[in-house]
Every structure is written in structure tokens, then in C-alpha cells.
């Protein structure tokens, strides 16, 4: 009904709301809240657009009445007006009208709230864990989608299109909030609680998001992206994630990198299947050096194209825009190609390895860590030599 009324008032609404929205729609910002790309965000959008229009109209009415009064009743030497104290009938009418408008809005709000909280037809569950200042995704086994073993990734959430995905969110430290505007509104990730958030994407593509609950120093740098792949592509992605570890060839630079990695990085980072020389598997978790107990799992680092809380691209800008702007049809293919050496964003990755806290503010300075028992939040500066970095980069490139 609301929509029908709105429909009839269309010209007026377009006129008023247009000014506000014109700028909004023209610039194609990646986190625009008016460009839903999935049914959940769509439901919100269908609710909010009419509300914005109503609000715009009311605002215009008030402003016009004030402006009219200013012009009409300015002091032109007229006598002091009659000291009338009001008009209860008018008053009551003008109280009831807004109440009615709001009642209508209320009904639709009510419906949408429950609609968006429906979880009974979920097809895929992904556990999402916030941590200062990145997101971890953990896919429980799901035979329907070929996830025969749990998958753990970070930064980019990969989902199949047209699938009702339920995010079970929590946090390991402070409150964060998961938000991919094109897919749904925000839902806080609260430590000690599990909150539910449902997303579904209509088309393949990359959808930008951002942590929106203030979570300390690098809150501004806690970004994320949702990557929607066609079902077939998603299956390929899963297969890749489940691929066993491939050790670098003997005597390669990467092999030397593996050694550095074993010495420096595995105390925090997990690479599935990585073993020591004697064949014992290397298990980083539970991670004792980081306050919240975990660092990103790097097993398939090169299959995602951002790192460090999606603050940096793992791809060079050219390669990245190639993926981002690709046609829906070719998107999956390009995304699944992962990061290859020519496309690797060497500057930021090397900078990160050289001195992570300088690239991203983190409580990683031992001098400030007395209160946490010397535990890092974020990744510390490991004081690596340039040649170690060289080797590490070569090694990381093998983590397809």
C-alpha cells in the first residue's frame, strides 16, 4: 500500500528526493548503501527509499511554511497581532497526521525486521570472526558445496551467488561490525556472543565492506570484501582451498623462504600442511604471541587479492582493476587466477614484512604491551633483513 501511494506521488518524490540522491547515485562509491546487489539489501532498500521520500517531503513542507511566514509576516508596520493562544482542533489534526504516517512506516518496518531475521532456509553457514584488525572466515564442512574439510581464510569472503549464506559472527577481542553494504546491513561481531547475519549475492563480483564498530587503533583499516562467484567457480575455489600443501622446489629461493618462514612466522601464522624438516606438522594455533590468539591463516594467501584486513591490495593496481571491472561472465575466471608474480603488489607486501606496524597502526610495540603480558595486537616488526624479505616473498608466492 505504501508503495502504491508512493507510486502515485512519484513526480513529487522524484523532485524532492532527487537532489539528495543525484549526487549519491552518480559517483558509484563501492560502499554505496543505495545499490543493493542481493535480496537482503534489496529489502532494506525498498523500505528506506519511500521513507527517505516521506522525510524529504515533510522537511520541504516545514521549510516552506517557515519561509512563507518569514516573507509574509515580516514586520511591515502592521499592528500588534491578536494574542491568540492556539487552536486545539488544528493542533490535534497536526498531531494525528504524523502519527498516522509513522504508523504506516512502522508496519512496514516491523515486517522487514522479521523478514530479514529469517534463517530457516539457510544454505551455507560461514563463521566470521573479527579480530583487531582483520576478519577470519571459517567454512564448516558442507557437502552440498564440496567443502569436505573446513576452510579458513581471511580478508575476502568468498561466496557462491544465489545462495542464502548465514554468517555466524563473533569476535576474539573487542566488538567489530560486519558490513557489506551491497549485500546487507551491519551486524556487530560481539565477543562472547554469536550474532547472525544473512547475505546473498545476485551476481558475481566484488563487494566492498568495512568494519563499522569502533575497535581501537586501526579500526579505519579494518576492511573486507565479499567475492561472489558463480556456483561452478565457487566449486573451483573450494577445490583450490582444499589443495594440499606443495612444498617449494629444492634449492629455490622459495625454499629458503620456507626456512625463514618456519623460523619467524609460524609462531603466529598457520600454513596447512607445512612440516618441519623432520616431518612434524607445524601448528601455529592457539597462538600465544597475539593477544586474541590468532593470526591470518596463510595457506592460500595468493588466492585472495588483498591482505592485512583488506587494507592493501595483493595485486598491483592494474591487475586489480582488471579483476574488479571485469564482466560478470569473465569475473570468476579472473578472480580464480589468483596472484601471480607479475601481478603481485611487491611494494606493500615487502613494506609489510619490513615493518608491519609502520604500514598499519597496531599495538605491536613491546614497550606498550606490559598490560597484555607482552602479547602483540597485530603483527610486530620482525626486523627481517632485505634478503630474508626477498626469500619470503618468493615463498609466499607459492602459497596459491
Amino acid at each position: 500500500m505504501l508503495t502504491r501511494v508512493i507510486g502515485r506521488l512519484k513526480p513529487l518524490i522524484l523532485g524532492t528526493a532527487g537532489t539528495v540522491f543525484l549526487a549519491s547515485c552518480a559517483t558509484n562509491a563501492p560502499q554505496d548503501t543505495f545499490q543493493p546487489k542481493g535480496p537482503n539489501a534489496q529489502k532494506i532498500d525498498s523500505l528506506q527509499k519511500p521513507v527517505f521520500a516521506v522525510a524529504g517531503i515533510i522537511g520541504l513542507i516545514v521549510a516552506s511554511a517557515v519561509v512563507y511566514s518569514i516573507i509574509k509576516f515580516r514586520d511591515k508596520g502592521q499592528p500588534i497581532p491578536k494574542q491568540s493562544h492556539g487552536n486545539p482542533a488544528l493542533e490535534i489534526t497536526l498531531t494525528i497526521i504524523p502519527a498516522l504516517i509513522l504508523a504506516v512506516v512502522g508496519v512496514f518496518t516491523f515486517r522487514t525486521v522479521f523478514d530479514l531475521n529469517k534463517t530457516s532456509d539457510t544454505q551455507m553457514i560461514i563463521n566470521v570472526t573479527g579480530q583487531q584488525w582483520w576478519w577470519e572466515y571459517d567454512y564448516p564442512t558442507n557437502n552440498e558445496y564440496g567443502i569436505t574439510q573446513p576452510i579458513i581464510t581471511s580478508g575476502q569472503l568468498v561466496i557462491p551467488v544465489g545462495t542464502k549464506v548465514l554468517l555466524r559472527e563473533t569476535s576474539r577481542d573487542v566488538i567489530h561490525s560486519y558490513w557489506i553494504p551491497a549485500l546487507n546491513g551491519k551486524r556487530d561481531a560481539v565477543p562472547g556472543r554469536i550474532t547472525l547475519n544473512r547475505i546473498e549475492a545476485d551476481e558475481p563480483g566484488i563487494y566492498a565492506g568495512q568494519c563499522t564498530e569502533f575497535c581501537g587503533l586501526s579500526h579505519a583499516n579494518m576492511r573486507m570484501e565479499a567475492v561472489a562467484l558463480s556456483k561452478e567457480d565457487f566449486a573451483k575455489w573450494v577445490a583450490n582451498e582444499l589443495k594440499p600443501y606443495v612444498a617449494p622446489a629444492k634449492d629455490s629461493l622459495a625454499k629458503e623462504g620456507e626456512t625463514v618462514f618456519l623460523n619467524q612466522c609460524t609462531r603466529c601464522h598457520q600454513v596447512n600442511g607445512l612440516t618441519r624438516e623432520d616431518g612434524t606438522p607445524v601448528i601455529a594455533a592457539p597462538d600465544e604471541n597475539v593477544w586474541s590468539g590468532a593470526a591470518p591463516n596463510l595457506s592460500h594467501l595468493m588466492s585472495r587479492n588483498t591482505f592485512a584486513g583488506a587494507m592493501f591490495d595483493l595485486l598491483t593496481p592494474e591487475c586489480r582493476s582488471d579483476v574488479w571491472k571485469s564482466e560478470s561472465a569473465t569475473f570468476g575466471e579472473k578472480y580464480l587466477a589468483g596472484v601471480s608474480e607479475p601481478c603481485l603488489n611487491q611494494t606493500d607486501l615487502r613494506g609489510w614484512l619490513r615493518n608491519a606496524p609502520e604500514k598499519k597502526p597496531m599495538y605491536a610495540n613491546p614497550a606498550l604491551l606490559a598490560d597484555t603480558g607482552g602479547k602483540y595486537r597485530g603483527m610486530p616488526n620482525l626486523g627481517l633483513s632485505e634478503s630474508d624479505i626477498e626469500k619470503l616473498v618468493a615463498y609466499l608466492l607459492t602459497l596459491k
Partner: protein
Amino acid sequence: MANIENFATPSSAMGALKRPVVTKGWREWVFTVDHKKLGIMYMATAMFFFLVGGLEAVLIRLQLALPDGKILNADLYNQMFTMHATTMVFLFVMPMTAGFANYFIPLQIGARDVAFPRINAFSFWALLFGGLFINLSWFLGGAADGGWFMYAPNSGPIFSPSHGVDFWALGLQITGIASLAGAINLIVTILNMRAPGMKLMRMPIFTWMSLVVQFLLAFAVPVITVALFLLSFQRNYGATFFDVASGADPLLWQHLFWIFGHPEVYILILPSFGIISEVLPVFSRKPLFGYPFVVFSGAAIGFVGWGVWAHHMFASGLGPVSVAVFSISTMAIAVPTGVKIVNWTLTLWGGKLWFTTAMKFAIGLIVLFTIGGLSGVTHSVAPSDTQQTDTYYIVAHFHYVLFGGAVLGLFSGFYYWWPKMFGKMLNEKLGSWNFWFMVIGLNMTFGPMHILGLQGQPRRMYQWTENRAGEGFFNLAFWNLVASIGSLILVIGVFFFLVNVFITARSGKVSPLDPWGARSLEWMTSNPPKEHNFDSIPTVRHLDEFFHRKYAEDANGQMQQIATAEEVLKQLEDNADAHIHMPSPSYWPIVLAFGLPITALGVIYSVPLAIFGGVIILFSAFGWALEPSTAPDTDFDPPSSGDTSKDVVHVG
């Protein structure tokens, strides 16, 4: 001014210390219990903190003007917005409204002072010391950095290891005590100290709105007191109230904060609603349209405001039932607020409008607050709010209601009541510049934030990145720059005000007795009022008593002037009361208040210091208790021996 200085020569005390006997120089202010002096001190303090908070805001805007801003680092930025909000909310708007309430409520209801004058002084000093205490953290290892609602567990000792949050929590505790004491004081004053005939429904609307506000304070402050205590016990004494590892639920903090926090936003806005409800009728030459509706809608806002707090938590996973309920209750609040907007507009309607600076600010409030209120209604639609929350769209909402609403109302009050408080008129021309720069600046600053937010720029980001700014000329980079330029225009606007005050103080125009043709009781005395406010307490027969003493309807139903303000005042003077006892100055309020920051410092740094602070508090409470509020008869000058010489200043 005749012998105002030696009017209340105080007595020798019955307490432990002698009463202050000098009422000149700085002591006149430091030991005063006069509600008008205290009101001015509140306002001066608030103004100072406005500049501090404004400076912080400008630094924020400079940092965000361009992508990857380098003016502040992440740590400093987080402190900056936390302290900006804390300063503006708790140390600027609240004290400023307390200043107005202090100064004008007794005058508007025809009283000579507040019910508890020494508590009034105590409240002011506690506020000042609390405010300074919070800001002390800047120099002692960094200010609070958790955002103004300080969500747990990010505010806990592990995630915020500096002492900033300790200073914040304890400092707000101190200002909270000040607010609570002030609220009780003013409620009793309004209920009990009204002039004869001043029925509740004849009270000026500013007094009414302040009454609602004081009730909100009285009942909301204890809630944040609890929250702050829990936080301090966690940070300083090892409790685990918000420590998830021990099984705590971080949402407890959110509930406690917002149960306080939502009534708080009405605490911030209702005084300004009150102010413009005084200003609009005066400059429309017409009574407030629908006075009872404005009164009751104010009370309704105060009441419903208690049932909506969880609209700040729509994204926190409350569950659909709670979300739906709080969503609807939030919408309900738009109805009484709408009543006010309607009544103000209808007050203008058919009036004879005089566009003084005060009037301009008041009209500005109607329009700009409505914009902010309407964006509030778009938040109240919970599903939409999950897109909006924690983006700049929220920042836009609350700056429109806070700056476009509360602050414009306060400025309206400055221009309207300046002659009353200081006997001089603020310059109208500078006032006009002040107004236009501020209104343009504020729309330029906060208007683009609607777009920024709806296009996905989250708040509380020390940097934003070109990457997510979108394409085209009108992208987020453009709007961020506009907002930052706008804030500089705001600075100029504020600057005009400061210049205006300065010039007026130096050489301003002396105000006539009734410069605006005012309507309410506070104008029925000299400018500035005498220490005892009224020579004789007027008997009230009308809403807008003063107006009705000046004007009457003639046979044709035309309003005609029947008396000048001077004549009205003369009449009061002629019937002056024989002797008037005013409360006497006292050392105790400031000493007692001083014990509070000492104790708080002790909580942070060393227990013996806290005990020392406690001793100061106890000692001064005793001294206070032993000291009569008003010095005994015999200590008065002039003695109360039936002579009628007292501070009567003849006007005209």
C-alpha cells in the same frame, strides 16, 4: 548600581571556618552562592570548553580534508573525536544549559535565588573541576580513546592501556554529581519557589522545558553513574564486569550507557527548545501558539525518551523482537517533537516578525533541527539503520540536531538575554554575520555528511582512502573537502561571536530596560538584575505576565500599550520588600568540590591520595552542615532594624 557590594556583608560563621567576609574582587566570584553569578560562571566555563571542543573538531576536519590525512596519527585521532564529543556534550552544551537554567529560572518564576544556593555553587565547581580533570589526561599520557560511548570491552584496561579512560570515567562521575545536585536543586526551585500566582501552567516555557530536563538528569545520571563505576572498578581494581574471558556480556555496558544516553540527547535539546519558545513569541509579538501542547509534548518527549535507548543498538544482535519494539517506540518520539515544530511555525504565522539575531537563530533552529529530526526518523526504521549506523549519515544526524538544534538555540539565547545579563546589547550587525557564517558553515560541514554516510563512509576513521571514494567529480573526496572547508567557515562564525562579545564589553550599547518588548518575568527587573532579583515579588496573573502589564486589548480587540516597562518596574520598586535576606557566601562549596578530583586522582595513582580527598570531602561536609545558609540577622548590613534602605536602584 548602588551599594550592591556591601549589601550582603556576610557574618562570622558558626562553622569551623569563618564565613568569607569580603565580597569584592575575585572572592566575589569564588565564594558566591548567587545564582546569577554562578550562571555566568557556568556559561563562561562552557564557552571555554566550546572553543576546546571546536578546536578538536577543526583538527578532525583538517585530518579528513584529504585522503590519507597526516595531521594526526591514529592514536591521537581516536583521542580527538572521543574528547571532542565528550567536551561538546558534557562540558559545553550541558553546562551552558545549566548556566541558562541557573540564571533565568529564578528570574522567570519570580524567585530570589534557587532553593539550595550553596549546592548550586558546589555543582558549578564540581562541573569545572570535573571538566578540567578529564582534560588533564591530555598531559598525563593521553586522553580517552574509546569514542564517546566508550563501548566495552574496547574501553577495558587491555585495549586502552593509557590512563585516558580512567580520567574520562572519573571525570564524568564528578560532572555527574554536579548534574545530579543541580537537577535536584532546580526541580525543588521550580516546584517550590514560584512567585504568588505563578501556577505551573503560567510558567515560562523555558522554565518548563528546563524542569523536564532536570527530571531527565535526575533519573538518567544515576544510570551512567553505575556504568562508570563498573568501568572504574574493572580498570582500577581488577573486577571483570566487561571482560568476556570471565563470562561478561559487553552488551551490559551498551544498555547502561544508552539508557542514560538517549535521555541525555533530550537533555541537550530541550533547553534550546525552551529558549526559542521564549524568543519566537517575543519577536512575533504573539503568544506561543498552543502553550499547553508545547508543555505536554515536552513532558511526553521526556517520558517516551526512556523507552527508546536500544535504537543505538540495532546492529548489535538484540534479536528481532527487541529491535522491532524499539524501532516503533523511537518513531513515536517524532510525534511530540513534531507538535513543537508545528507550534513554532504557527507562532510565526500571522505574527509581526522582527528579525533580530536572536530571532534568526531561533528560526534557523526550526528548519535545521527538523532536518536532523527527520534523519533521526530514517534511523528509527531499524532495517535501514543497519545500513546507516556508524556511518557519517549518523554523524550528520546528530550534528544537525546538536548544532542545528541545541547550539543554535543557545546562540539565540545569548543574543536574547545578553542585555538582561550584562546590561548591554550585543551588536546586531556582527550578530548577523555570526548567524550567517554559522548557518552556512554548518550546512557546508554537516550537509555533505549525509551523502558521505549514505555512500558508505564509516565514522571514526582517522583516514579515508581514495580507493573507496568512488568516481566522478562529486565523489566522497569532494564532499569530505567541502565539509572541512565548512568547518573553517564555522570557525569564522564563532569568531564573529567572540569579537562581538569583546566589542560589546568594551564599548557596547547600553541596553534599555526592555529592549525586545519581552513577555516574561525575568524582564521585570533591572538589567542586570539586582542581587535580590526583584524589589518586591510580583504577583502573577497571566502567562506572559510582563506583556499583560504592558499591553491590554482595547474595545476593538486591538492590543494597546497601557504601561511602559519602566512604569511596571517602578511599581514594583515602590512596593519594595522591607528587608530581604539573601543567602551568604561560603567557602564550603568550592572546598568540597575540590575534594572530588583529588579523590579521583588518588583512585588512578595512589590510594592515600584518595583518602586525603575523602577527608577533604568529609571535613567540608561537616563545615557546611554547621554553617547556616543565611547568616543570622544581626550580621546583616544594613541591619534589619526596620529601616527600609536597601539595594533599590531606580531606573530611567
